[in-house]
């Protein structure tokens, strides 16, 4: 079980430990250092880039038992939590006060905040509220030399460099996170959820382009193409029309006056882009059903093939129609039907390649198609990953974006905290690119699936 996560990668730890306290973590790290064994942290293992896999073998620290919410400060909208707390449990603990934790990855019912911090996770509502990094103000960390340190400050704005900003999203390669102080957000007064139905994918993507260009930023703007929405509909019955080419699930929130006028403006843009219909969720039940369709989409697709490979790339939103066409072409070229269900509002694509991992040749083609799509994102001015992280999935592709000088600096930052690469080796940095300082300790049992 601990050999896998949500990605197509694989890596086998030699020992798995379940600490209860920060001091436990520090002691484990000390012991591992003594025996020069690598260490990797892990939350729920829902990650999609291999970030929590033991690429170098060694000790895996699973934070499942450090799952306490230590403090909730309703007045100042802060919560102090341990890394093993499940994302949605933070919201559950504070919703009585009208508050919630904004980052909402699709896996929020099972993924943990420690993993969210490591990967700087996003979610549908990232569009308006930002990634995990925008909601974390302080961290307690265990460094690879076993030292326990704190960075950031509870009220924000600690004098000095923004260390919290550096550690969030560092994919477990600089330190292990043992305590997190998060910001809580206040539920909006009004939420309106729209489902816009289109007969052509191009019309849906042009709607997103126009909405962005007119400066309308909804709280969320998700797209499902016809192929994926049919799969979802068969499984969830969320009310997505099976004969449509694409739907946009759009949510606006704020003061009632703002939400209403935004919803009206969005409906107008949808209609001028030939939407067949724009529905508005009548009540909470309607809304939940639409979101259930979105959140469980990957599960629905899982019924269609033994395995699916969810990609994560980002493009400028103005290039959305072009990108979707190119993804379609790539699918044809490699012989896959590639579905798209993604965060359209911030240009964060999630093409899904269905494949059978037992078929070696098909697996290779899936990887090649994925690489072509990610290269396309970069060529359109985009990035390798919007929310899943680089991990061991895309570390070799990092050279598409970064120069030797960039790697030198990132390497110096890495070595400033993790000089022996004992912590989460083989991630982020390309191994092929003279980044030989990363010493992946070869273990007889560990190997990446791709090599």
């Amino acid at each position: 079980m601990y050999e896998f996560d949500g990605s197509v990668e694989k890596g086998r730890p030699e020992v798995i430990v379940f600490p209860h306290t920060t001091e436990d973590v520090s002691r484990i790290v000390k012991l591992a250092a003594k025996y020069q064994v690598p260490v990797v942290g892990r939350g729920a293992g829902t990650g999609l880039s291999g970030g929590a896999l033991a690429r170098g073998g060694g000790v895996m620290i699973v934070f499942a038992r450090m799952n306490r919410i230590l403090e909730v400060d309703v007045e100042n909208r802060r919560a102090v939590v341990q890394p093993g707390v499940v994302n949605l449990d933070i919201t559950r603990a504070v919703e009585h006060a009208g508050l919630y934790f904004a980052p909402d990855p699709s896996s929020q019912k099972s993924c943990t905040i420690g993993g969210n911090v490591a990967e700087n996770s996003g979610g549908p509502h990232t569009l308006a509220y930002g990634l995990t990094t925008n909601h974390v103000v302080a961290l307690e960390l265990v460094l690879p030399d076993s030292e326990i340190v704190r960075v950031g400050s509870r009220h924000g704005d600690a004098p000095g460099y923004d260390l919290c900003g550096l550690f969030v999203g560092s994919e477990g390669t600089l330190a292990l996170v043992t305590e997190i102080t998060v910001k809580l957000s206040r539920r909006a007064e009004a939420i309106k959820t729209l489902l816009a139905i289109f007969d052509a994918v191009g019309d849906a993507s042009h709607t997103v382009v126009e909405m962005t260009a007119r400066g309308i930023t909804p709280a969320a703007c998700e797209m499902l193409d016809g192929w994926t929405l049919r799969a979802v509909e068969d499984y969830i019955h969320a009310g997505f029309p099976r004969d449509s080419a694409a739907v946009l699930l759009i949510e606006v929130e704020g003061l009632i006056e703002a939400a209403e006028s935004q919803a009206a403006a969005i409906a107008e843009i949808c209609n001028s882009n030939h939407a067949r219909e724009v529905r508005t969720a009548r009540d909470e039940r309607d809304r939940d059903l639409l979101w259930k369709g979105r959140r469980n989409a990957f599960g629905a697709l899982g019924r269609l093939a033994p395995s699916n490979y969810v990609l994560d790339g980002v493009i400028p939103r103005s290039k959305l129609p072009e990108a979707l066409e190119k993804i379609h072409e790539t699918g044809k070229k490699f012989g896959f039907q590639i579905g798209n269900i993604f965060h359209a509002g911030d240009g964060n694509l999630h093409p899904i390649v269905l494949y059978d991992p037992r078929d070696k040749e098909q697996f290779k083609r899936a990887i090649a198609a994925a690489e072509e799509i990610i290269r396309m994102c970069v060529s359109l001015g985009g990035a390798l990953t919007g929310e899943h992280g680089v991990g061991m999935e895309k570390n070799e592709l990092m050279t598409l974006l970064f120069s030797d000088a960039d790697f030198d600096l990132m390497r110096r930052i890495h070595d400033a905290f993790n000089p022996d690469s004992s912590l989460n080796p083989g991630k982020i940095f390309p191994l092929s690119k003279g980044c030989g300082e990363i010493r992946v300790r070869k273990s007889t049992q560990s190997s990446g699936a791709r090599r």
Partner: protein
Amino acid sequence: MSSTVSLPLRLEKLLGGGRVQVSESVLQTFGIAGPAPMAVLKPHSPDEVAEIVSFAVAENLAVLACGSRSKLGLGLPPSRYDLALDMTDLRQIAHYDPGDLTVSVDAGMPLLELAKVLGAKNQFLPLAVPFPATSTIGGAIASGIDSVLRQQYGTARDFLIGAEFVDGTGKKCKSGGRVVKNVTGYDLHKLLIGSLGTLGVITRLNFRTFPLPESRGAHRSTFPTLESALNFHSALLKSGLPFSNLELFDAEFATLLAASLGKASGARTSLGAGGWQVVACFEGSVAVIDRIRRELMERSGRMQALSSESIDSQPAQQLEAAFREAFDWLRRAAPSVALLRIVLPRIASGDVPDLLNGSQPPLQRSAFTLRACGVAYLALLADEEDARANAALEREVTRLFSSAAEKKASATLLHAPLWLRERAGVWGAKRADFQMMQRVRQAFDPHNIFAPGRFVGGI
């Protein structure tokens, strides 16, 4: 390091004629309360910046990049300061995709010029910081100076999406990108914010932009006591109403604010009437503005405000601009000023009275404002520069630093005479993560050439 050819000549050889200034009068304008550089260089491209930094490494010269130099007084003067880089010739918009709401701009671009380009597409950057007419975008980011729109739009770290810079080895580096959602690689650009030029020379910055609001409004109410004003301030923060700024201030601050607004402004009415005042600024559609206005009138009435007024879009904008410039006019409000920035909890009702209780004669005046997000400015104003006044200033600054530390709040001396900054320190007590900051500094600038000693803990 030693060479028979003089430094100015070698620099001229590096950059070409006319781009190296060594005249005493120019050097003085780049000086920082004491140290002035040996030369001022005006690079035209990131490549030239990289060449200069490589040269500085080879010759062991300390470098400070400057924009309009409006905030050179932040931090401590660097312990070494040989070359000033005048970045104002790097001022292109490298890339602007209005349809994606992203812009990539050179560090030396003045904020006002950038605002014009974005404004033509009905967009803006919510970085409402002092000196917009002259300040460069690079300086605004490197200084970490406060934006008064923070309550609504967050700080620069929330909309800076990438950066290009030259590191301390003379290499051109980048971090982030030009898309609004991106987790590729370490977020190094976040470290540059507020780093006072100690990590690298910023050459280009990428931002997400925002649509200009349709309309603006403000509301001002006056309260008899600090306690009643704080109650109102807290109630507004808890109300869920979207404010772009929320400012609670004392009578002295009000008087200075009125003076800065000038006689012509419509927002000036009765600002100097005394008491404690709360100003809420907000923006949005006309319907949103009307709704917030209505609620504020009701709430201020309920909470027994002495007076209350609604302020129209135009004067509201002037008022916002005056708050934005508070950093500037507060530090000029008396012959000797110590301006502290203190970050309190979001709901700071319990902490403010404690902080303000100390002011003792002969330090008779102070001006205080508390913004949303718990950011407070306290200006200690000494009308004399004699030994007694100086001693009182120092005592009070020291008291505030320790009072803030007790509350686990952070305090920074944004402005003060050099002697006071040297004696009382600028950053408060040394933080537990200082060693981590040293590691970051060492990684970015292994030869310690970027404004050494200027930043936190003399880093």
